[in-house]
Structure formats: structure tokens, C-alpha cells
């Protein structure tokens, strides 16, 4: 027993020596080595305890030679294998599975696979981090076509976010990449993590694939947080490609014109009211609709009470389109208010919720042609099966101008893994 524990300690010491040599030139390595040394100390004490009080301590850590030869700067050679010593990427996943049934004509009730989301985080240095988000979404038309046949059902892959960020300090961080546009609370609070949000679905104004608010933004972003006397003022300032040729998509492979989109987002999380967040943003772009060119101004605001007893999220946005060279402008508004409350009974696993939402788009609005106005509400309850999975049951009622009212029932299980 004593001998095997001794070998165990020696092995750990040797491994720590190799790791130390492998990453000795990086700031992260010092922290890692300290952690390993500490672990060794703990193990040594445990060994001493097991062997009886007063047992002699193992030899000092620094005296231990490495158990295997150390390669060059970027590789560690171990038992004939070559292990790359690149940045360590952490992966987290989100998924959901749904059942829905509505009284809308032409629709069928049934199961839907929802989205499979992978989120990656990779620390390149203490100040530089890469974040990514990839989704696979079940679609009726995602498969390949052959010989003019209609597209087959399948999964649509999408790079939702990919950004590299340099953190100078809490006050100043700069990044480049593809983002969820930070002009809307929901868009950046929950991304594609259905499990994170209380409800089954996103509000219509920020729906993926929707046109009201540009969900994605490709470019650069400067962000940070200033104490501001306890107001904790957070900011995002961005410059990038605006909407792409298809309005619901960002300009991934280039902008559709030479006018870059810019945005400013400010919000406060005051010390005095822990749980409160309030702010607003402005977004400016030029969009092309066929040969016509429009200036786009989006202004929005939000108030959020983060705690769950109660939880309150309210957002409002106005989208203004003015055609270049022609008089007149069009204003479209959207808002929603969501209220939820984590019940104190039954181990606090139940959380009923309600949301009212509204979208008004003028009938003659040329950029949002085909996007109907909406008034609707939903009520539901969330049950947390574990700390990492939930079941949500929801009833929705929606009304669009000139169309029959739609009622629907939705059931979702969502989780992180």
C-alpha cells in the first residue's frame, strides 16, 4: 500500500514536471503548475494520514525528475505518442425536443427535433479568448435536391457565432467576428440555448429567421463596463456589415453595400437594485431592397429584473426606414412583456410564466413587405427536472390582421450537456 502510494506520488510529480516544462513559457502555465503542486501537497498529506501519524513526508516537489523526456516547445513526446499542446477547447452543448399542435389550417401536430447547439470556449492566453457557437437545425428543406426534386428533410448547419476577443481590462475589450447583434436583450442573453430561457420560444420580434431585428452582426465590437458611481454602466460599440441580400441574414461574405452598419448599446446594472438591468441601443444601416435603397434606424430599450421571484423582461423597439432620395418614412414597432415566478413549494422546481407581445408594421412598409403584424400572448409552466434539464408546457394565442386567430399547445424538453 505504502509503495503503491509512493509510486502514485512519483507519477504525479513526474507528470507535473512534464506539464511544467511543456508550458513554461506561457502565463497560464504558472497557474497550472501551482495548482498541480498544491494537489501534490494535498496528496502527500493524505498519504501521511493513511500511513499513520508522524510518517515522514515525501521528498520536496522540486527535487523530482521528469519521468519522460520533454520534446520541443509545442509537443510533449510520451511513450511514442505526440500530443499537441495547443489551446484547450471546452465544449458545452444545448438541445431541445418539441411537440406542437395548433388549429392553424395546413399545419400538422407532431414532434420536432429542435436545435442541437455546440458552444466552444478556447483560452489562447489570459487575455485572448475565442468563442464559437454552431447549430444543427431540423428543417423540411435542408436536404440536397436531385434532378429538380424538392429538397429533402434534414439538418441545416449554421455557424451562429465565432469571435475572438482581447480583454485589456474590465473597461475595454475588443473583438472581431460574427455575433448575435447586441441591440436586443433576448438576442444576447439566451442565444440558441433554449434551456436558458424560461419559455419554449423566443419573442416574435427577435425570432431567428425573422426580419424585424437583424439577429446577426459581422464585424468588430468594443465593449466594457464602467463603475459610474454604482450604476455599473456597460457599453457595446460596433461597426460591421449590415443586413445581407436576404434581410434576415447578416452579411457573412460581405456587405450588400459600402455603408457599414454601426451600433451603440448602453445598459446599467445598478448596485443599489441587485437584479435590475435597464438600457437602450441604437443601430444604423443602409439596406438594399432590389434597386431601392433605405436608411435604417433601429432604437430599442429594455428593462429586466433578473431574479426569479419574480422574473420580468420587457423590451420595445422601433424600426425606421427612409428611402434614399424620396420623402416619407415608415415606423414599425414591436414590444413584449414577460413575467414569471419561481414557486417556493415543491423544491422550487416549478415556474409559471406569461408573455404578451405585439408587432405593428404599416401595410405600405416596403422593407418589411410580407411581414405581418401580430398580437398574441402565451402562458405556460416550466418544470426543472434536474439542474440541467427542464420541461416546458405552453399555450399560445396569436392574431394577425386578416387571418383567423391561432391557438396552439407546445411541449418542450430542453437541456444542457
Amino acid at each position: 500500500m505504502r509503495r503503491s502510494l509512493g509510486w502514485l506520488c512519483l507519477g504525479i510529480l513526474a507528470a507535473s514536471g512534464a506539464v511544467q516544462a511543456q508550458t513554461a513559457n506561457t502565463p497560464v502555465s504558472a497557474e497550472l503548475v501551482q495548482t498541480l503542486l498544491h494537489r501534490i501537497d494535498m496528496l502527500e498529506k493524505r498519504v501521511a494520514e493513511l500511513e499513520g501519524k508522524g510518517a515522514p513526508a515525501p521528498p520536496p516537489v522540486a527535487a523530482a525528475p521528469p519521468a519522460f523526456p520533454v520534446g520541443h516547445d509545442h509537443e510533449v513526446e510520451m511513450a511514442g505518442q505526440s500530443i499537441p499542446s495547443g489551446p484547450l477547447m471546452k465544449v458545452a452543448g444545448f438541445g431541445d425536443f418539441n411537440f406542437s399542435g395548433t388549429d392553424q389550417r395546413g399545419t400538422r401536430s407532431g414532434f420536432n427535433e429542435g436545435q442541437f447547439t455546440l458552444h466552444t470556449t478556447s483560452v489562447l492566453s489570459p487575455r485572448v479568448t475565442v468563442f464559437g457557437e454552431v447549430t444543427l437545425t431540423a428543417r423540411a428543406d435542408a436536404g440536397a435536391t436531385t434532378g429538380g426534386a424538392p429538397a429533402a428533410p434534414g439538418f441545416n448547419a449554421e455557424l451562429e457565432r465565432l469571435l475572438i476577443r482581447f480583454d485589456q481590462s474590465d473597461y475595454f475589450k475588443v473583438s472581431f467576428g460574427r455575433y448575435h447583434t447586441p441591440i436586443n436583450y433576448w438576442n444576447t442573453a439566451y442565444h440558441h440555448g433554449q434551456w436558458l430561457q424560461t419559455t419554449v420560444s423566443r419573442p416574435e420580434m427577435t425570432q431567428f429567421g425573422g426580419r424585424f431585428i437583424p439577429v446577426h452582426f459581422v464585424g468588430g465590437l468594443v465593449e466594457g463596463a464602467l463603475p459610474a458611481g454604482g450604476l455599473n454602466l456597460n457599453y457595446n460599440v460596433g461597426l460591421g456589415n449590415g443586413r445581407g441580400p436576404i434581410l434576415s441574414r447578416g452579411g457573412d461574405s460581405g456587405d450588400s453595400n459600402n455603408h457599414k452598419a454601426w451600433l451603440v448599446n448602453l445598459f446599467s446594472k445598478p448596485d443599489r437594485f441587485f437584479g435590475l438591468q435597464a438600457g437602450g441601443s441604437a443601430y444604423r444601416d443602409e439596406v438594399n431592397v432590389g434597386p431601392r435603397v433605405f436608411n435604417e434606424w433601429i432604437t430599442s430599450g429594455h428593462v429586466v429584473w433578473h431574479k426569479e421571484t419574480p422574473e420580468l423582461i420587457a423590451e420595445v423597439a422601433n424600426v425606421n426606414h427612409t428611402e434614399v432620395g424620396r420623402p416619407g418614412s415608415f415606423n414599425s414597432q414591436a414590444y413584449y412583456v414577460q413575467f414569471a415566478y419561481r414557486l417556493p413549494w415543491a423544491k422550487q422546481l416549478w415556474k409559471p410564466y406569461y408573455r404578451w407581445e405585439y408587432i405593428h408594421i404599416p401595410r405600405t412598409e416596403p422593407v418589411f413587405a410580407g411581414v405581418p403584424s401580430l398580437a398574441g400572448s402565451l402562458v405556460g409552466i416550466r418544470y426543472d427536472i434536474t439542474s440541467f434539464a427542464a420541461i416546458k408546457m405552453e399555450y399560445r394565442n396569436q392574431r394577425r390582421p386578416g387571418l383567423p386567430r391561432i391557438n396552439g399547445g407546445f411541449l418542450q424538453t430542453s437541456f444542457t450537456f
Partner: protein
Amino acid sequence: MRRVLILLWLWVAALVPSAAADIAVVVNPGVPVNDLSFAEMRKVLLGDRQFWSPNLKVTLLIRAPVARERDTVLKTVYQMTEAQFRQYWIGKVFRAEAAGGPRIIYSNEEATQMAASMPGSIAFVDAAQVPKGLKTLKIDGKLPGEAGYRLH
């Protein structure tokens, strides 16, 4: 009379601040901070403040579940349940607001040793178990055991 004296003693004992019941906020000696307001400490714990200074990042050390130190921090500072705390950090990383969550530690001894050796680290340990030489932060100008100290 004896019963009255015992009750009186218990009452006085309850009023006298006890450092042993308080949770001390200990940091690596290289951290250039001696005093934090409660709100500033909350920002550190929430991951909203990630730098002590431009050249020193915060490393947050939190006890594993069930530990009294963790329960106190969750209840007093985060004001969250265990499930809310987990969801908070998963969401924080998912939103790209932090590269990772707090480091989990399994004993007060481990916490103090890590805090002593790891640059920028901050840990929460039973005030009675803080070894000499480790830096204990004042919270709102108060140390553990002083009247008005909020972490207990």
C-alpha cells in the same frame, strides 16, 4: 437564579460577534486591494469584475456544494439557489462574458493554500481557519468578527 444566569450568559454570547462563525474573504498577497465594498465583492463573485488591476486577473475559488462557506456566499452575495447558481455560470460562459466559471475547491485548507499560491485568487473560508500570513479583505471596512460584518 442559576437558570437566569445561564440564560443571561447565552444571550450575551449571542450578541458578541464571533469570528469563528464568519466567512473570511482571503486573497493572494499580491492582490492590490485591502478593502472591498459589499457591492464590489458581489461584482467579483458574479464575474462582472474580472481584473484586480490591468495586469492581474481575478481567479475565483468557490467551495464545492454542501460546504457552509458556499451556502453562505450563495445566500448572502449571489442570492441564488444552487440550481440558479449553476445556470448563472453556464449562461455567463455561453454569453461569452467569461471564459470559465469559478474553480471548485474541496476544503478550507485547500482554499487557503490555493489563495496563497495562485496570483489573483480570492477564496471564502471559515474565519477561524485562516492561517497567518494570508491576506484577509475588509468588506465595507469590516473584518470577520467585527460588528456589522455581513458574511456569516
